[in-house]
């Protein structure tokens, strides 16, 4: 599961939500390096025959691949931590350290699960209080989001 739940004290719960990460940062680097070797190997071989114009295209392609993998890795490192402690609901998001955080009063916070407006679209999950809301769990599949919503409701 991409949601882990910790229960430090009887009434307090922490949820850590993270996207699927089936390949490590290192794994991505190795894969990228492999593709660079192959792509430039092929283009370099033809360049040696005089057909050098494949090189810029191979470079451009590896640039797109690199950016794509990098952005994908950045997103895979994303964490959302929902901590329900005492009278407070705290939501912190970020990579290795929290980048943004906010908190609600526990008794006013509500869990809202928006069904998709259009067939096939994902649902969305919010914690809302006093006209402010924060979306959580956008990186989950629908089923996980539903069970997270249920768990949050039970915990609040």
């Amino acid at each position, binding site marked *: *599961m*991409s949601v882990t739940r910790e229960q430090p004290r009887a009434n307090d719960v922490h949820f850590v939500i993270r*996207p*699927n*990460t*089936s390949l490590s940062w290192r*794994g*991505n680097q190795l894969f990228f390096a492999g593709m660079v070797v*192959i*792509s430039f190997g*092929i*283009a370099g071989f*033809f360049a040696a*025959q*005089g*057909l050098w*114009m*494949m*090189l*810029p*295209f*191979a470079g*451009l*392609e590896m640039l*797109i*691949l690199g950016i*794509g*993998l990098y*952005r*994908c*890795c950045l997103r*895979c490192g*994303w964490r*959302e931590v929902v901590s329900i402690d005492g009278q407070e609901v705290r*939501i912190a*998001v970020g990579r290795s350290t929290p980048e*943004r955080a*906010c908190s609600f009063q526990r008794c006013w916070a509500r869990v*809202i699960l*928006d*069904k998709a*407006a*259009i*067939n*096939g*679209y*994902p*649902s969305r999950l919010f914690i*809302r209080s006093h*006209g*402010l*809301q*924060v*979306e*959580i769990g*956008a*990186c*989950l*599949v*629908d089923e996980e989001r539903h069970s997270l919503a249920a768990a949050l409701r039970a915990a609040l």
Partner: protein
Amino acid sequence: MSAVPHDDHHHEQHPYWIKRWLFTTNHKDIGTLYLWFAMIMFFVGGAMAMIIRTELFQPGLQFVDPQFFNSMTTLHALVMIFGVIMPAFTGLANWLVPMMVGAPDMALPRMNNWSFWILPFAFAMLLSTLFMEGGAPAGGWTMYPPLSLQTGAAFPFLIFSIHFLGLASIMGAINVIATILNMRAPGMSLMKMPLFVWTWLITAYLIIAVMPVLAGAVTMMLTDKFFGTSFFNAAGGGDPVLFQHIFWFFGHPEVYILILPSFGVISSIVPTFSRKPLFGYSSMVYATASIAFLSFIVWAHHMFTVGMPLGGLLFFMFATMLIAVPTGVKVFNWVATMWRGSLTFETPMLFAIAFIVLFSIGGFSGLMLAIVPADFQYQDTYFVVAHFHYVLVPGSVFAILAAVYYWLPKWTGHMYNESLGKWHFWLSAIFVNLTFFPMHFVGLAGMPRRIPDYALQFADYKMLISVGAFGFGLAQLLFLYIVVQTIRGGERATSQVWDGARGLEWTLPSPPPYHTFETAPVVK
């Protein structure tokens, strides 16, 4: 990700029609766009085929002039390859890969949107050449110089549309790779992935490996024509045969780009309707990987007649024949999956079985073509046309049709009309053979390809072929009707849909309950 607290005045989740489709980053929407695009181009490319078959109905020149005829063969191929089969597979990947690996969406949703919307522009550019001075490109989809350099005003548009098509495929492939590598659900190890995901992973890898070669090849042709270089110009010290080498270095892996995802589709469908797990899962994975590897070292079998050293001929002949081994493993596994299964023959299964049988015929004629002395006879005849149509039409196209019938209930929430589906299958299966089987005979008898006129001896077969082609074309209108009918209504599909179906996508509802935004809770 809107993880910042914000006032929710413009909680926009209700995109209007145009906005929804133009800016969507949702993998299902993009999958739908790809599939509809492929469907439309199927009829565009099909219309071109009908023009070709009308001209070839009788010997002599009746309907179109030879230049336009050659434009039709050229554009038909480009449309079918880059506009139908590749986009259809990308559409299937968009719909299915995230569901199959348990990811919420594709890894790079914004790039996904771009890679789709580049396609209509590229094809608008390519098809606009029909109205240009000097006509549309007519030198064949393989664009060999020096012939293709005689293209008129259309030439740079041809090159740039190829660039855009390549760019779109690359971005699609990168998305698929990033999704499969990074976004699998915990527990979904590589060797547990459904074969459709595996075959697409390898396809995406092939796309990334060979597309720069194509881009470089066509660009060098552009500079040869306009900027005075001589890469392929013998008068300036270049070599036109070199173009053939790099074209086929791209081209042969490309034909596997056009078939590997169908192997994945067939490997999903056959177990479902045999009510047995797939026989030899891991050998399927290894066979796919070996095919992909071998596809890099067989390219010169397309150019046996250019005058290669004997060692080269032998190497490429044997390497090509080797491909039959992993392909045979696959066919064996599908048949072994059916062996003693409790088979039922719904439309997807019918198309899958026809795929296995007819694709094998294409494989066998490929083996015949791989024999160098035989190929000296067959090269550039209708025998080659028969070969690649057997692997591409009852091969790739049938696999796509099977996939659509198989997953349409999942996508739309409705069952298609089974008896119309069966009609569509039998009409397609009969006409496809009527069209392409006699091509073997006229080819062996010496009928050349890409020629609008022919000797009287071929007349009877050629007429039969044209009748088959018109029949096949009409049968596809029935398919369009069935799809539209299923989208608009029909018996409700369960989430499981087929009682033998396995895999993550069948645990999801078909489709999630419709719930309009108007009735959703309003934010105060």
